[in-house]
């Protein structure tokens, strides 16, 4: 028996309209999970999990026998990147990017993704599980007590044709480090593994890796250097200093329209790279540390005065997006997003931009409600139409269409020549548990309202379009009204929003 009211029924009906996320290939995701599971098996804790994965491996692998690998060489192949982590030093082939702790990944291609992983393997799990048919072979790793490896090529249709090479390095301390290479193309994978093993040596000074199932910690951002490159243009957004290459086009239009504006952007001349800096309205609620998930790695870098510095990187469709979340201790928070091509040069560029970040005056304190800047507004044109929604009065341009949806009143612009569609949405509710919106954004008085919170921002529109979005939260007693305006970014949307805001008034109930 379920107690349920009409509202819950409505919610369930709405949830029933939510379809699965398009574009997810369950089979490919499953194969990826299997490959990752295979790579992790050497470090799995627990006999049950080991038995399960060992059975999978044993059932589907050809036992080619180890390929011949020459003793370890100290030279780093041309174009490879040396790294030191988890007790070993090795070199990584080109095209891999840092992922979760100890993982470097290539770009996904038809569900396949080449990767190299270094992890502890101290639980006694054998390199070749019983029944797998695998035969370990010894290899010389400088500094190690001993080292063995196995190579596998799958003929399991569930995991597709790919290559896995696993190296166990036994250290003098008794610890075992596992290096895994998983490659989508078997021959190339075998060559890559052979070359990579030749670069492995013991490095007692390398940073430790967490246990595979431990909660991952934010790792230092590799390659970060605090400096402003020569010739770069320096700028500031209300307390955060940043810089970008000379020749980039800066767009301060949101901040231009709204002096305390929340976002500024800069774009490279060829449009291939972009930077946006946004002052986060909700930064006070950020936890001091958000542990990254294994599928969502994050890192950090030293930033004077900060209590939150977290960086996420996403590479997709040959483009890289690096997002840094930084907050001044006790002060303001910012989101910095750098979009670049998914190349090594793009990564370097993103790191350079992050290296320019620094707090300046204005970041120390979040302004109180009376210290917020006044929202700039303009007079309401005489030909606008007055409208009402419950106790709210507002004006909208002539010929806009009134309607409603999801318990909200909506006004939508018509096919006005040369203008993209604009909407105004008004919804009502109650202030739950007396918690009114925190002051942020702009100050503006609305007749009849006890408290007014005005914020401006942007969001994605169709294609590459960006929309201007302004919201006003009005509260009186325990009643609240939220007004949201959305219009085309870059035009006079900000001015339009200001006119609408000026027209607002709370009248009777």
């Amino acid at each position, binding site marked *: 028996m379920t107690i349920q009211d009409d509202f819950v029924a409505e919610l369930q009906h709405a949830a*029933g309209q*939510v379809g699965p996320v398009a574009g997810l290939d369950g089979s490919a995701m499953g194969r990826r999970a299997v490959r990752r*599971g295979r790579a992790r098996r050497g470090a799995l804790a627990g006999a049950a999990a080991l038995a399960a994965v060992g059975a999978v491996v044993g059932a589907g692998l050809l036992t080619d026998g180890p390929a011949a690998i020459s003793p370890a060489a100290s030279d780093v192949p041309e174009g490879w990147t040396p790294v030191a982590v988890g007790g070993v030093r090795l070199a990584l082939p080109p095209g891999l990017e840092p992922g979760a702790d100890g993982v470097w990944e290539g770009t996904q291609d038809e569900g396949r993704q080449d990767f190299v992983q270094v992890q502890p393997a101290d639980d006694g799990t054998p390199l070749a599980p019983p029944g797998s048919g695998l035969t370990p072979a010894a290899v010389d790793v400088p500094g190690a007590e001993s080292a063995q490896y196995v190579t596998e090529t799958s003929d*399991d249709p569930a995991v597709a044709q790919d290559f896995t090479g696993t190296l166990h390095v036994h250290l003098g301390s008794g610890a075992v480090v596992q290096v895994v290479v998983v490659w989508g193309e078997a021959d190339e994978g075998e060559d890559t593994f052979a070359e990579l093993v030749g670069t492995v040596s013991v490095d007692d000074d390398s940073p430790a890796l967490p246990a595979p199932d431990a909660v991952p910690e934010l790792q230092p951002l590799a390659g970060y250097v605090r400096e402003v490159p020569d010739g770069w243009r320096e700028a500031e957004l209300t307390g955060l200093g940043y810089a970008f290459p000379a020749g980039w086009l800066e767009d301060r239009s949101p901040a231009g329209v709204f002096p305390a504006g929340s976002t500024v952007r800069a774009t490279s001349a060829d449009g291939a790279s972009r930077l946006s800096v946004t002052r986060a309205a909700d930064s006070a609620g950020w936890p001091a540390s958000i542990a990254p998930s294994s599928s969502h790695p994050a890192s950090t870098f030293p930033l004077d005065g900060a209590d939150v510095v977290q960086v996420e990187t996403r590479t997709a469709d040959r483009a890289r997006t690096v997002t840094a979340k930084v907050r001044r201790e006790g002060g303001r928070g910012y989101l910095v997003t750098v979009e670049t091509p998914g190349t090594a040069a793009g990564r370097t560029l993103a790191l350079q931009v992050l290296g320019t970040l620094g707090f300046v005056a204005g970041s120390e304190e979040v302004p109180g409600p009376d210290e917020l800047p006044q929202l700039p507004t303009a007079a309401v044109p005489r030909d606008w139409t007055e409208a009402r929604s419950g106790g709210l009065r507002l004006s909208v341009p002539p010929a806009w269409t009134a309607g409603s949806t999801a318990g909200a009143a*909506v006004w939508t612009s018509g096919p006005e020549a040369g203008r993209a569609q604009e909407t105004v949405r008004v919804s009502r509710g109650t202030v739950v548990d007396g918690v009114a919106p925190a002051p942020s954004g702009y100050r503006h008085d609305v007749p009849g309202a006890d408290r007014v919170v005005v914020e401006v921002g942007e969001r994605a529109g169709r294609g590459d379009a960006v929309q201007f979005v302004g919201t006003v939260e009005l509260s009186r007693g325990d009643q609240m009204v939220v007004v949201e305006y*959305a219009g085309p970014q870059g035009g006079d949307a900000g001015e339009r929003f200001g006119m609408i805001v000026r027209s607002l008034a709370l009248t009777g109930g």
Partner: protein
Amino acid sequence: MTSDCAPALLGERDDERVRVVAAGSTPAERFTAFAAASTPALSRIAYLLCGDRHRAGDLVQLALERTYLAWGRVGDGDPFAYARRVIATARIDGWRRTRRDVLSDPADLHPAPVPDGTRTVVDRDALVRALRRLPEAQRRVVVLRHLLDRSEAQTADELGISVGAVKSSGSRGLARLRQLLGADGTGETTPARKGTVR
């Protein structure tokens, strides 16, 4: 965002998900078949929880990887429940990656205005947006307990919290949703309606 979602699965509920029958000759084949069949339903749950299709994809991938690692224990039982639990207890909120990733054109989100002003029921996009404004703990409970219609005990078990916490978080979450969605749809706020027993 939601415009990229497939057409609605009308009436599909968590308890009506496709059950994967044993198929394939190897555990990996059986797991991959499970992944293929379960990803749509898992992604739907993930999307309700996080409101971000990229994040939802990450969550599903994470759930599949954890489920595969536990396949020896759960493969012959209820692997879907295991995967759902991974999603429900994972860190569901990342932060905004790019402006294109997170928010959508209101024209995509709003059904066509109703000229005569008559009310419509809560639409899916408004629901997803409203859910995103709930604290994570409340959101998890609302999605599992109320949207997926799990019992209080099941919800508590899956989230690893007490039944009392389910009650309180669910109550507060629903109250907040009522506020955000203007539950009566007329522009006038009304007290929460009392429950009925069905």
